[in-house]
């Protein structure tokens, strides 16, 4: 598990940020994106993917959440 931050970029897309490794990557897709259920698997543009426990859609971004690494793009 790692602490990650999800924020919105100026174009409106979601950006993934892993402070521990200074890894910043656009989020290609998010598994659940409805007001009641938000999160699930995040596919990153660098090829990696992370899992965030689904939760109600946050009222405001950025938000720090715990995430599990599914597939690594990092070495």
């Amino acid at each position, binding site marked *: 598990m790692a602490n990650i931050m999800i924020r919105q970029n100026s174009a409106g897309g979601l950006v993934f940020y892993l402070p521990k490794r200074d*890894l910043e990557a656009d989020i290609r897709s998010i598994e659940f994106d409805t007001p009641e259920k938000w999160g699930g698997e995040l596919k990153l543009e660098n090829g990696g993917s992370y899992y965030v426990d689904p939760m109600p859609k946050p009222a405001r971004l*950025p938000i720090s959440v715990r995430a599990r690494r599914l597939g690594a793009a990092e070495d």
Partner: protein
Amino acid sequence: MAALTREDTEALIAEVLEVYPDKAKKDRAKHLMINDKTLESSKKCITSNRKSLPGVMTMRGCAYAGSKGVVWGPIKDMISISHGPIGCGQYARAGRRNYYVGTTGVDAFCEMNFTSDFQEKDIVFGGDKKLAKLIEEIEMLFPLNKGISVQSECPIGLIGDDIEAVSKKAAAQIGKPVVPVRCEGFRGVSQSLGHHIANDSVRDWILSNRDGQAFETTPYDVAILGDYNIGGDAWASRILLEEMGLRVVAQWSGDGTLAEMENTPKVKLNLLHCYRSMNYISRHMEEKYGIPWLEYNFFGPTKIKESLRKIASFFDDKIKEGAERVIEKYTPMMDAVIAKYRPRLEGKKVMLYVGGLRPRHVVGAYEDLGMEVVGTGYEFAHNDDYDRTIKEMGDATLIYDDVTGYEFEEFVKAMKPDLIGSGIKEKYVFHKMGVPFRQLHSWDYSGPYHGVDGFAIFARDMDMTLNNPCWTKLTPPWVKKEAVAEKKAA
């Protein structure tokens, strides 16, 4: 020499790497790339933020340098104690030329070196008592300090001193913030982790100090983050922002104060100049206080105009008009600078190797002067920096991460730039090789280089260095004569 093609550059990299043993060669190859503007992410082409290879000459610093030297040091009314042996602080003292207004030793302390001066007995018996006494002494001798930060040097972590406990106790005693910073030099691979640690300690010990307290705000409050006022940089930036109608509440951290930092959570927009060293705190403020942040670039007219408009887009029409007014007012000044220096600098090639933001930020300023940046690189960048660099640099230019002394020299020999911009450790090597050189960390005792005023000085300095007559006088006359005689004989 004509610009290198992609194949030439590839061949050059291969040739330079040839001397390394296999393992080192493989590792270093990952840190060198040839730019391709179409790339979205640098990930596949360049590896960064890795431990330097043993045996090579690297230009990096340590985490303590990143925290004390860069982030904490310039806060003028706080005293940063270099906790540990005396050398770390003394040899780095005032080296970054963070200008400030104040009376040194009375209400401002940046240029002074405060240290616990560890001796053998402190290593053996621990230095906590000494630290407590030191804080007491500081409070007695410099009562106008607004707070103290304890910057750990290597031994503190090694011997396991509890600086947090000492700091907490001392803070209660003197009634001012005392911030323990765990930035021992051995942490991380470069000064970069020191920036991160420093940001985290600001977050934990300073940022929320004034939450809930009344503060008279305006809709136009901004803070300048990641400008260390080297040679007056932040001042040259600040006047532009103020002229367009914004109120600059805080400067982080060049010429900044503790109160400014504590008030920063109340601003409307954080303006981030050095992304590398302060993105952490910007992200934190965005999440906790909902303050958006924006990377801007005040090097050279093109980028200044672009940035002013980008900043204005966050505000109402009054500021947008203000930005246009500022641009209109200063354009003739900047054009005059270009008219004067561009003919003298046009077509010259530059190679850069600097720290946090300059390898990409100054590219625009050189281009405004008609110069071309053919190679660039960072000492301690991460991949997000290279993502941003790819877009700034021309195609097929060389990008090097944590370049070694040997590689840099070889690249320069092959690419023959007309000017190199790098740090003090590289300076004299290249002077001896006869290549014009400008120190781009502390502006070679000049500056400011940010903003409109800075651009005029930047252009003058580049011209002064590049077109200095000394570069034609490097061969002594007797050697020259011999060459002439030989030619005659032949």
